[in-house]
């Protein structure tokens, strides 16, 4: 039993190393498969993976529908950017900045989570949406000299390189994967499946929900910290409702509660956005249509969708947490 898990971890480590070396080789100027333009996309991809994994823990695994993830990302982005701008962009400071960004987001997530996580289902979705907007408006107005108001912060040192995002995403993945296998992860799934049953088995609903929310927002903050060193200019409007939907889209496309799915969906959506880079408006239309079609395909009840599902032999999406009572 013990040996098996050690072998598994070893396999995991080796595959991470292989992936790292592989991408690095593809990035070499001599090989030039991933040219500098594609490199920026690869960086964005890993940031997206980090963001979406955090949201998947909250929404997919614990079943608490959050539409304010971008707000927490902005907290991470701003605090990390400020820290690096006030100190320097040495490696130690960058790591510290990432940690500070993540912790700041997690702290706000904790404060916000206590009152809001009492709500359920679509009410929670709307409340988190509102909170995301409040965070954006507060950031925009609170201290114009420090946070730059609507114009945001510019001239942030570009400290984010491939290593930062790669290991950021890998650490996020490992942490969430291991959490999922722990008693905490099983409690999360229990909360998602049936709150009353979970509570009667002795699970403290509030603690589990808040903990999941804090961990999820921690990674949102981490992703935000990586993001500000990646773009160099951050503005409150980058972290609006639309951004939250972008992240939700990755989680939904990959399958709620499925962490490998999240990774694949983040890659797929970034590839799609590169493929459609000349048609920016069309891209959003395709995204939106995909969202609707996937939902109809997975849970639609008209004969067409039932037949389609049978052809692809997919089970009907089952998340009993959102079932009608």
């Amino acid at each position, binding site marked *: 039993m013990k040996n098996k898990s050690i072998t598994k971890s070893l396999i995991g480590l080796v595959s991470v190393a292989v992936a790292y070396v592989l991408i690095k080789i593809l990035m070499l100027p001599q090989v030039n498969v991933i040219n500098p333009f594609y490199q920026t996309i690869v960086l964005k991809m890993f940031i997206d993976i980090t963001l979406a994994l955090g949201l998947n823990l909250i929404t997919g695994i614990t079943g608490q529908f959050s539409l304010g993830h971008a707000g927490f990302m902005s907290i991470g982005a701003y605090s990390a950017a400020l820290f690096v701008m006030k100190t320097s962009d040495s490696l130690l400071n960058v790591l510290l900045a990432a940690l500070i960004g993540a912790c700041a987001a997690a702290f706000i997530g904790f404060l916000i989570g206590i009152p809001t996580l009492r709500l359920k289902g679509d009410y929670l979705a709307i409340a988190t949406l509102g909170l995301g907007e409040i965070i954006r408006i507060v950031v925009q107005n609170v201290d114009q000299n420090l946070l730059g108001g609507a114009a945001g912060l510019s001239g942030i040192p570009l400290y984010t390189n491939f290593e930062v995002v790669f290991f950021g995403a890998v650490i996020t993945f490992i942490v969430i994967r291991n959490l999922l296998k722990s008693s905490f992860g099983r409690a999360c799934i229990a909360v998602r499946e049936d709150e009353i049953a979970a509570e009667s088995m002795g699970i403290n609903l509030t603690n589990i929900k808040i903990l999941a929310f804090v961990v999820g927002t921690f990674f949102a903050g981490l992703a935000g910290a990586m993001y500000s060193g990646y773009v160099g200019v951050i503005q409150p409007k980058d972290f609006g409702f639309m951004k939250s939907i972008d992240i939700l889209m990755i989680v939904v496309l990959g399958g709620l509660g499925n962490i490998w799915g999240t990774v694949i969906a983040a890659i797929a959506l970034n590839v799609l956005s590169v493929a459609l880079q000349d048609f920016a408006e069309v891209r959003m*239309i395709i995204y939106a249509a995909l969202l609707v079609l996937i*939902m109809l395909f997975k849970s639609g009840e008209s004969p067409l969708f039932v037949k389609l599902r049978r052809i692809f032999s997919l089970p009907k999406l089952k998340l009993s947490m959102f079932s009608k009572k």
Partner: protein
Amino acid sequence: MEQFLQQMINGISIGSIYALVALGYTMVYGIIKLINFAHGDVMMIGAYVGYACVALFNIPFIPSMLIAMVVCSILGVIIERVAYKPLRNAQRITVLITAIGVSFLLEYVMMYFVGATSKTYPQGALGAGKLSLGALSINVEQVYVITTTIIMMIVLQYIIKRTKLGKAMRAVSSDQDAAQLMGISVDRTISFTFILGSSLAAVAGVMLGAMYTISPLMGVQPGLKAFVAAVFGGIGSIPGAMLGGILLGLIETLVSAYLSSSYKDAVAFAILIIVLIVRPAGILGKNVREKV
């Protein structure tokens, strides 16, 4: 004091637009328990249809508004039939995500066709000039907005309380299965709800467009605000949506006049969260206990 009254009038006029949109949210939520995220975008489509009629085809304002109402009703029914009906027994999250998808679809399809730049209605489309009432001066626009809203609300109350279809709506929203057993066509009633909601949204859209500017994303913020208004008044309750809309408009205007205009939007969401936490049923909503 005059300034205060002036602000009250501004608040009531923007609040009545929120109220019109909020009615659509509350009726749809009352009947199929769905937050119809696309509702604000139906309003946007209404504004564009009105713009096309007024600015391009030189149709007078009131007929343009009626055309917008018809177009939006058809759009509302199509959305309901294509996107929501197949999911009627699905999980709530699925339908909510679908609604978000529909909302984005409308926004970006519109952006593809008309471009992202904002447009303005011809000057004085909704009446120009000011009425002076003592020291107060009221824009004619505002008078029109408030009167139209009042007329719409009376018509809506009449439809819901006095007609057969209204009775069917109330029956379906209180118990879908029982209503069906009594011979009410649930599908048709739900479509009718979407017709009512979407045509009210069209009215709001045309008026909002005539007062400010129109753009493909104009529906997002008023849509969210109107949803806040619906929750504030008690979601599912029609008088609640009216009251919630007007109160929200008033609070917003007063905050931006006396405290800080930059926090205007935050106030709406703060109200939402406080209401959800303290009294989820809203001002006029019934408190329903959850059964275990």
